[in-house]
C-alpha cells in the first residue's frame, strides 16, 4: 500500500536527486572548462616565459661583459638552466601544426646559449671586440626568438581557433540546454505535483460526495474511491459503516412494521367482536315486553314469576349497555346475583352457589360482563351436565396489589392443553352462552383493558373441579407480576 507520506517523500527525493545530478554535472563541466582554459593559458605563459628568459640571458651577458665577476657568471648560468628547463616544457607544447616554429624556437635558444658561451670565452681570452661581435649576434638571435615567439603565439591562436570556438559554442549550447532542462523539469514536476495533489484531493472529494449522499439518507450507494493509499482504507471503513447503518435501519423498519401489524390486528379484533355483539343483541323490544309481563304477573299474583322476569330484564338491560365500558365490581356482583337467581330458579337444588365477598373491595372497576361468562361456564360444566348437580363458589379476596376473584366449580375439570388454549385465545368454543360472550372474549378484553397477559389463571384437576382466578389490579395500568 502506498501511503501519502511515501508518495510525498518519493517526489521530494526524486527532485533532490535530479538537482544533485544537475549540480554535479555542472560542477564537472565547469571544472573541465577551467582545466581547458588553464591548459591554454599555460601554453602562452610558457612560450612567453622562455622568451623572457632569453632576454634576461642577454642582459646578464651584457652585465658580464662589462663586469666579468663570478657573481654575474652565476647569473648567466642560472638563466641558462632556466632556459634549458623551459626547453623541455616547450617540447611538451609541440604538435603537428606548430612543429616547425617550435623546433625553430628551441634551436634558436640553443644557438643563443652557444653564442653566449662563445662570447664569454672570447671575453675570457680578452678578445673584447670579438666578444662584443658575438654579443651583438646573441642580441639578434634573441630578437629572432622574440619574432618566433610572436609567430608561435599566432600559430597557437590559429590552431586553437577551433578549440576556442568549440568552447564558446559549447557554453552557448550549455546555456540552451539549461533552459530546456529547466523547462522540462518545471513541467515534469508540475505534472507530478498535480498528480500527487489529485491523488490526495480526488479521494477526499469522493469521500465528501459519499458523505453528502449518506447525509441525504441514501444508504444504498456504494462508496467508491480510486486510490491506493490511506484513503482506500478510509473508504472501506466508510463503506462498512454505511452497510451497518443500512442494516440497522432495515431492522428497525422491520420491527416497526411488525408492531404496526400487531396493533392493527388488535383493533380489528376489538371492532369485530363489538360488532358481533351488537348484532347479536337486539333486545329493546324484548326488554320492554319482559317488563310488561313482569307487571302483569305481579298483578295476577305470581310474585315469583314477576321477580324472575325483573331479573331477566335487568340482566338484559345490563347486557345491552356498551361492552367496552367499565363498571364497579359492586355492579358486576349485583348483576351476577340476578343471574344466579335466574339459574337458581332453573336448577333448584342441583345448583349450590356459595359467595365469599370482601365488601371493601367492591369499588374497583373492571370491564363489564367479565364475571358472568365465567360463572356461566362453571354452571354449564358442573351443574348442567350432571344430574346430581354441582357447587359453584365465588370469592372476592384482597391479594396485596390485586383483587383476587375466584370462581370454583366441582365439575369434571379441563385438560391442561385446553386451558392453555383458552388463555392464548386459540380455543373455539361451541357452547352457547346467554350473553353470546365466551371465556375467550373475557380473556382478550381483560388483556386489552389492563394491558397485561397474565391476569387470568386456570387451575383444574380432572374429575375434581376447576378454579379460575382473575387478578384485578387495584390501580389500573399497574401490571406488575404477582
Amino acid at each position, binding site marked *: 500500500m502506498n501511503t501519502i507520506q511515501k508518495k510525498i517523500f518519493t517526489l521530494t527525493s526524486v527532485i533532490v536527486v535530479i538537482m544533485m545530478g544537475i549540480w554535479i554535472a555542472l560542477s564537472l563541466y565547469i571544472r573541465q572548462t577551467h582545466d581547458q582554459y588553464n591548459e591554454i593559458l599555460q601554453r602562452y605563459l610558457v612560450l612567453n616565459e622562455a622568451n623572457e628568459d632569453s632576454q634576461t640571458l642577454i642582459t646578464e651577458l651584457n652585465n658580464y661583459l662589462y663586469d666579468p665577476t663570478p657573481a654575474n657568471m652565476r647569473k648567466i648560468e642560472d638563466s641558462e638552466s632556466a632556459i634549458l628547463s623551459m626547453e623541455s616544457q616547450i617540447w611538451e607544447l609541440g604538435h603537428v601544426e606548430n612543429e616547425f616554429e617550435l623546433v625553430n624556437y628551441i634551436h634558436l635558444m640553443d644557438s643563443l646559449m652557444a653564442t653566449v658561451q662563445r662570447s664569454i670565452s672570447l671575453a675570457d681570452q680578452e678578445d673584447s671586440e670579438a666578444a662584443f661581435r658575438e654579443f651583438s649576434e646573441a642580441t639578434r638571435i634573441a630578437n629572432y626568438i622574440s619574432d618566433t615567439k610572436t609567430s608561435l603565439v599566432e600559430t597557437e591562436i590559429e590552431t586553437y581557433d577551433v*578549440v576556442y570556438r568549440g568552447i564558446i559554442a559549447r557554453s552557448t*549550447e550549455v546555456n540552451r*540546454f539549461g533552459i530546456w532542462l529547466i523547462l522540462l523539469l518545471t*513541467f515534469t514536476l508540475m505534472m507530478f505535483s498535480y498528480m500527487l495533489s489529485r491523488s490526495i484531493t480526488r479521494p477526499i472529494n469522493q469521500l465528501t460526495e459519499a458523505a453528502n449522499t449518506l447525509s441525504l439518507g441514501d444508504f444504498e450507494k456504494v462508496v467508491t474511491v480510486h486510490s491506493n493509499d490511506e484513503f482506500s482504507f478510509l473508504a472501506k471503513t466508510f463503506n462498512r459503516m454505511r452497510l451497518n447503518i443500512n442494516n440497522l435501519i432495515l431492522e428497525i423498519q422491520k420491527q416497526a412494521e411488525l408492531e404496526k401489524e400487531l396493533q392493527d390486528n388488535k383493533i380489528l379484533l376489538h371492532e369485530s367482536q363489538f360488532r358481533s355483539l351488537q348484532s347479536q343483541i337486539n333486545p329493546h323490544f324484548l326488554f320492554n315486553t319482559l317488563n310488561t309481563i313482569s307487571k302483569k304477573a305481579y298483578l295476577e299474583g305470581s310474585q315469583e314469576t314477576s321477580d324472575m322476569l325483573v331479573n331477566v330484564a335487568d340482566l338484559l338491560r345490563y347486557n345491552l349497555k356498551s361492552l367496552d365500558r367499565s363498571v364497579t365490581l359492586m355492579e358486576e356482583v349485583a348483576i351476577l346475583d340476578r343471574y344466579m337467581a335466574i339459574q337458581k330458579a332453573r336448577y333448584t337444588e342441583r345448583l349450590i352457589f356459595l359467595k365469599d365477598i370482601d365488601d371493601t373491595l367492591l369499588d374497583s372497576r373492571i370491564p363489564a360482563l367479565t364475571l358472568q361468562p365465567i360463572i356461566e361456564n362453571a354452571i354449564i360444566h358442573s351443574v348442567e351436565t350432571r344430574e346430581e348437580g354441582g357447587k359453584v363458589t365465588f370469592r372476592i379476596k384482597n391479594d396485596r396489589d390485586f383483587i383476587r376473584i375466584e370462581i370454583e366449580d366441582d365439575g369434571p375439570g379441563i385438560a391442561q392443553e385446553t386451558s392453555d388454549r383458552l388463555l392464548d385465545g386459540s380455543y373455539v368454543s361451541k357452547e352457547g352462552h346467554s350473553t353470546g360472550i365466551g371465556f375467550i372474549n373475557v380473556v382478550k378484553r381483560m388483556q386489552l383493558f389492563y394491558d397485561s397477559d397474565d391476569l387470568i389463571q386456570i387451575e383444574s384437576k380432572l374429575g375434581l373441579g376447576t378454579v379460575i382466578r382473575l387478578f384485578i389490579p387495584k390501580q389500573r395500568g399497574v401490571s406488575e407480576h404477582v
Partner: protein
Amino acid sequence: MNKLLSLFALLTLSVLGYLTYVSAESIINTEWHEPLPLSRENQHYRLVLISQDSDTPFWNSVAKGAVERAEQEGVMLEVLNNYGKNDEVFLSNLELGIHSRVDGIIVQGLDEEAFKELTKVKAAFYSIPIITIGEDVPMEESLRRTYVGSDHFLAGKLIAQQLIADMGETGEVAILLDENTHYYQTLRMEGIESILKLYPDITLIKVPTDPSKDKVMATTQNLLNQYPDIEGFIAVNADAASGMIQEISRRKQIAPLYNYSFDDHADIDSLMQQGKLDAIVAQDPEKMGNWGVGLLIEWLEGETVPLDFDGYFTPVRIRESQDGL
C-alpha cells in the same frame, strides 16, 4: 476534456524531452580535434625556402612547386619571403633559418657580401646545406651545394636570337641592367653579348639603372634623348620592363620597336597581353621549386652526394606576344 489535457501534457513533455535530448547530445558531441602531439624522436626534415619578391607570379610558382613536393615527400617546408626587394629582411630571414638550425635551406641567390658571409660562414658552421634557386651565386663565393633554376646564359642567348630574328641584323639595341650587379643578370648579359657580337652592325648600349620605376623612367628618357634611333630594348632586369615601356610609349609608337624581357616580374604578364613586349623568356619556376626540394632531400638522405656543383637547369623558352608584333 481530461483526456485532451493529458494528451497535451504528454505532447509538451515529449517535445521538451526531445529538445533537451538534442541539446544534451550536441553538448556531448561538441568535440574539437586537438592537434596531434609532436614526436621528439621521429622528426621530419625542416626545410626553408627563402626568397624576395613574394608578390610575383614567378616566386609564387616556385613556392607552389616546392610546397607540393614537400607535401609529397612528407617534409616540413617553411616559405620565408618578403615583398619587393628588401635585402635586410631577406638576409634576416636567412639568418633566422640558419640559427634555427633547419635541415636545409633553399634560397634565392643574392650577389652580396652579407649573403655570402651568411652562407659561407654561418651555414657552414651549423653544416646546413644551401641550394640556390632561380638566381645563382657562384659556388666558390657561397659554398652552396648546387643551383636549381634557369640557365640564364642560355636565356640571354635565346632572347638575342629572337631579337635578331625580329629586328634584323642592324640597329641599335639598349639593354637595361640593374646598377647593382646580379650574377644572373650578368649571365643573361653574357648570353646576349655572345650572340650579338656575331653581328657587327648591331650596336649594343648597356644601361645600368636603379630598378625603381622613377629612376627607370628617367634613365629611359635620357636614353631616348641620347639615342633617338634605338629600335630594340631588352630589359635584362625584368623589374625595369614596366617603367621602360611606359616611358617609351610616352615618346614614341610602341609597335615598331622591339621590346624584350624576362618573366620574373609581376608586370610582365600584363605587358605581354597588351602586346607591348614582343617576346619574353619563359622559365619554369614550379619545376624549380619542386626540383630544389627534391634535390635537398636526396642530399640529406645521402642518395646523391655530392650534388652537381654546376647546377640543375630547368627549361627556358621564348614566349612571343599573342598578336605577334
